[in-house]
């Protein structure tokens, strides 16, 4: 790996806010691709794997072709083939290695070298870890970065939008319609579909970067300070490169990072996360004025309209009396 920046030795915890306007941030395969909802509270959900996919995609785009920044879980490759590359790098390119159906490390040292090779070459393994013990065994890796499900800060209302397309899917469709009515071609060939959107939703996700899993001599993946900077960059920009008809407008709104000055940390993560609060405010009010904002769900906001933009919210970070050894980075 060309990256020579030091391995990460400080724990970080972060809160990520992102929003969606007229889009579907994460479809639920169990509900016909409706946006994921918590059925008890009607708050929206975005899974951890959905966010990790976007981080991978961003890094793949931003660091295309750079050594040490390949993405393991991606389009266009079979996982076992990548394990095999590790074996080829380790044992030399021989017919035996190329042809074997199952390979297991001959010794603990070899297992470690193969694991390190995978970590050095693939950003996502270094970051999130991975189960590499498929048919061809390259061991398991637990990565330092752990991301939770994101939840919307208020209940969201999914809308079903019916859309039409001025063309038929197949010849058979067209024929069937032609036999039906004698209307003009435009209406004949029309097919209908539906999209699910959330008019507006602000989502909050929590994440953890455990330094020992980066720099521990046995368990660490070698995740570096530069990798961390790339992770923050990815969290900031991942939605900019994930545009699609389904997503609508999505954007990272705020990333709050708590940096501990030790490997194991200096405070409880949940206590730090509690310092980050979201409030409702009137869109025309100045958010800096505490009198203009109310807690989510407060009685004062009962007759307010639904939130439709980030201007309807204020995110505050309580910086008073931070536990010693904890810094707020952004």
């Amino acid at each position, binding site marked *: 790996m060309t990256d020579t920046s030091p391995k990460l030795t400080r724990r970080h*915890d972060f809160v990520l806010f992102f929003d969606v306007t007229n889009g579907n941030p994460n479809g*639920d*395969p*169990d509900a016909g691709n409706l946006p*994921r909802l*918590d*059925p*008890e509270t009607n708050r929206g*959900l975005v*899974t*951890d*794997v959905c966010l990790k996919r976007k981080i991978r995609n961003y890094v793949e785009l931003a660091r295309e072709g750079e050594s040490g920044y390949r993405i393991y*879980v*991606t*389009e*266009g*490759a*079979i*996982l*076992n*083939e990548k394990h*095999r590359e590790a074996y080829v790098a380790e044992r030399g390119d021989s017919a035996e290695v*190329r042809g074997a*159906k199952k390979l297991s490390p001959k010794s603990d040292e070899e297992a470690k070298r193969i694991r390190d090779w995978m970590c050095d070459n693939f950003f996502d393994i270094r970051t999130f870890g991975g*189960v590499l013990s*498929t*048919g061809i065994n390259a061991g398991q890796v*637990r990565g*330092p970065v*752990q*991301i*939770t*499900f994101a*939840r919307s800060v208020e209940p969201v209302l999914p809308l079903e939008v019916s859309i039409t397309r001025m063309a038929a899917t197949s010849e058979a469709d067209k024929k069937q319609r032609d036999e039906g009515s004698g209307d003009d071609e435009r209406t004949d060939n029309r097919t209908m579909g539906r999209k699910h959107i959330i008019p507006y939703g602000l989502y909050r996700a*929590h994440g*953890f970067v*455990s330094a*020992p*899993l980066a720099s521990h001599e046995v368990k660490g993946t070698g995740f570096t300070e530069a990798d961390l900077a790339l992770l923050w960059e990815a969290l900031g920009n991942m939605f900019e490169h994930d545009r699609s008809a389904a997503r609508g407008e999505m954007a990272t709104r705020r990333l709050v990072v708590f940096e501990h000055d*030790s490997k*194991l*940390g*200096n*405070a*409880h*993560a*949940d*206590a730090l996360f509690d310092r980050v609060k979201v409030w409702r405010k009137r869109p025309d009010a100045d958010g800096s004025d505490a009198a203009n904002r109310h807690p989510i769900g407060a009685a004062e906001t009962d007759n307010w309209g639904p939130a439709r933009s980030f201007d309807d919210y204020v995110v505050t970070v309580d910086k008073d009396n931070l536990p010693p050894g904890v810094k707020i980075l952004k």
Partner: protein
Amino acid sequence: MGVRLHVWGDLACFTRPELKVERVSYDVMTPSAARGILEAIHWKPAIRWEVTHIHVLRPIRFRSIRRNEVSDKASVANAKKAMNAGTTAGLGIDVTAARQQRAALVLEDVAYVIDARFHLTERAGAEDTAQKHIAMFTRRAAAGQCFHQPCLGTREFPASFRLLGQDDPLPASTLPDADRDRDLGYMTYAPGYPGGPPATFFRARLADGVLDVAALTREGLLA
């Protein structure tokens, strides 16, 4: 000498080994999951944690989540084909072949108190005393330090934790009376490893909201 730790979180998945493709969680935290939480805070090869009690503090509620996942093993036939063609193009996890949609039945809004003690193992050196390790654990747990953020079964469900003193009152419990005494059937005590010890199970019962692991495992473990 024991420790007492309060842990809680939004979601949890303590997967039943017999239902692990489409994961179904046990009703309550397993002793091995509790051990994993303790080990995330402090562990050395010199010690082995033993969970004695798990106090269940919230109602047992489930929720289903379906996600796109990667199938556990890429096919050898495809690998060979790609090798012969000399390219890996067109094969991968985003295509339908390697994609699986799997539902998980997970627990919602959980909180537990774990009572545990530890034993020194044969790898303990002269400098490894029980006092030293208990002091390290309590110092870390009280300060919110951890080797890595502990989780409730799987890593996307992080656990928040607070150290409780031996004499501190238990946090308030909202477990309904109907759930306080329940036979939970056979539950994993410790998972097995290939080439290692086999998986062990015990008959889990909630008695007044407490899983008395020490007493139940004295009744016998099933291998």
